[in-house]
């Protein structure tokens, strides 16, 4: 049984800084990682495989040549093979063009797939759109925000525990289907050094646009419906005051004055109302 885990390489977001003058991202020295939500999807694929050894896991990514690093991580963590769709023509793809490219790659290289697993969103773009768009393009039912998954007897259906607003839901769909995950292993897994070396012994298939049979106008920026017209830094609080080296008592009084200046009644027996 074939499972495809679609993954993305992302910058380790907590380290991203902004050049205030130019308004651009300082990517220098920022490590790239496998998007944590994609890693969760992979965690679940590996768990399903542990219960059903006939499963074969393919990690699929669209990205620049460096995205190979994210696929290596996927192989270390238990993917059986990896495919990188990589072409300069893919640059500037919005979620639509990305989903289209991925769906073609899946048709082409994993035609017998039964299950597509994705992370609920990537931590750089945060759109959470590629999963549902991919599901629609492949005409698959989708289950989103999964936290647990199991295949029912005969591998005909998947049953997913998913997060909903203010609770959980158990949802079921017939295969083939697409599931997005918002949680995986609580603690990030650590492969063995043997698995790290083993991942490097595996081939990563690299395919370009022509191999996918996609025309230039269907992919990348020209295949995108949305265009970014402006990038700018979020409005900064220009007059933010920062106080250092205050005694706790002084600091407390500062905050109290600050609240008062903003019209917050601070007497102990009064309540703030609007």
């Amino acid at each position, binding site marked *: 049984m074939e499972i495809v885990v679609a993954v993305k390489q992302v910058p380790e977001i907590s380290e991203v800084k902004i050049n205030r003058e130019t308004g651009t991202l300082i990517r220098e020295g920022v490590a790239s990682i496998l998007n944590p939500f994609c890693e969760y999807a992979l965690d679940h694929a590996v768990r399903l495989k542990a219960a059903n050894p006939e499963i074969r896991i393919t990690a699929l990514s669209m990205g620049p040549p460096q995205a190979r690093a994210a696929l290596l991580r996927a192989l270390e963590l238990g993917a059986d093979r990896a495919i990188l769709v990589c072409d300069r023509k893919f640059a500037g793809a919005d979620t639509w063009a990305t989903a289209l490219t991925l769906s073609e790659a899946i048709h082409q290289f994993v035609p017998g797939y039964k299950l597509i697993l994705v992370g609920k969103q990537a931590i750089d773009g*945060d759109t959470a759109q590629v999963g549902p*768009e991919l599901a629609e393009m492949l005409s698959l039912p989708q289950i989103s925000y999964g936290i647990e998954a199991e295949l029912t007897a005969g591998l005909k259906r998947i049953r997913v525990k998913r997060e909903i607003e203010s609770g959980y839901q158990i949802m*079921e769909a017939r295969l083939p289907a697409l599931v997005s995950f918002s949680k995986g292993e609580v603690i990030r897994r650590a492969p063995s050094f043997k698995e790290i070396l083993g991942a490097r012994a595996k081939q990563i298939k690299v395919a370009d646009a022509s191999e996918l049979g996609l025309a230039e106008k269907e992919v990348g920026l020209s295949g995108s419906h*949305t265009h970014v017209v402006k990038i700018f830094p979020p409005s900064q609080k220009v007059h933010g005051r*920062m106080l250092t080296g205050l005694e706790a*008592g002084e600091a407390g009084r500062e905050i*109290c004055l600050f609240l008062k200046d903003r019209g917050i009644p*601070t007497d102990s027996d009064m309540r703030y109302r609007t």
Partner: protein
Amino acid sequence: MLLIDPQKCNACKLCEHNCPFEAIKIVDDQPEVDDSCTLCGSCINVCTRGALSIKRRIVSARELAQYRGVMVIAECELRDGVLQPKKVVYELLSKGRQLADKLREELVAVAMGDERMASLDTLCHHGADRVLRCIHPLLGEFSTDGFCTVLSTVITRLKPSIVLYGATPNGRELAPRVAARLRLGLTADCTGLDIDEQGQLVQTRPAFGGNIMASIIAPNSRPQTATVRPNVFTADYLDPDRPVQVQKQPVHLSKAAIRTRVVSEIRFPCEEIAKIEAARIIVSAGRGCCKEKDLKKAGLLAEKLGGAMACSRPLVEEGLMPHTCQVGQSGNTVCPDIYIAAGISGAVQHAVGMNSSKTIIAINEDPEAPIFRIADLGIVGDAGQILSALLDALHTPSPASDSGQSEAGRGVGIAD
């Protein structure tokens, strides 16, 4: 156009039964499509053989101009046994009203649900010119397939130029599904919307966890669709005298179109969430304020200021606070008048949930903590100690408090 692969088709008639427009008929064991097909795509999903596909062509500027009006998806939730619009819907209507006025086009709200649906007159009071009620027993509970099918039909029929969804979990699941089906541009989680000189929707959204803003347009497809972050726009439009026009929309939906099944459900009481979302003052505790006594102080302070207490993710993970109190990417989005971040470093995942707060006060031991970049008042120090001191200070009004002295330098650095 709709393409049919006769090799794959087994004439099961599922497409015929599921077409909302009765555009497909099985004739001589082969589907035939007539002119009433809108390419809504409902048939493709129900086909078990993969025999159907759609080939679309690029639309011309003239065709784009046929799309008119702003549509707001009125997501409903069950309250007191009645399906009622969520808070974000009113925010969307206020914003949608502005956009529609700018375009001089109509504002339509679309609500999907079953017979428990409220009357929805309020949607008109909040700015909608008309409301479409899509009522069907299969819409009582959210399903991506069901809602996508119904909504795609409505959009195809109505041809609005803009469609707005709340960026709720369901909204963010539904919108891309519809966008992919109808080949539309979609912008996620917008925090700003405007109309440019060409009458295009300019959608602004944060990326890289709020480190950068991007303005996005969709020049070649209509409608332009976006999900909009809750609690960003204010629901300030209200006119109880506006004419009410609620229309019942015919819904064609079969069970086969819904390919997922809810087996069971556990719901937590959601008072906490409602409290945090409504609070004007929030005291939020993070890793640097996680000792039991510190949390007590934060709670006490919230109570004293008449606000609510919240927290960042580590405290939920440590089991110190319930998930319902969590602010940030995987928790609630809030925008109170005052947000006091005690011992929160302000990693982007947290910041996205609170950085639209009107005023932010940050207390943290690390002067480099990113929270200080978005704080109006930043204090470097131990959160627990400073909260105690603040509680004391609230007890004893300072004599200097009314002289406006707080703006004076007092030998401290002023950050940029």
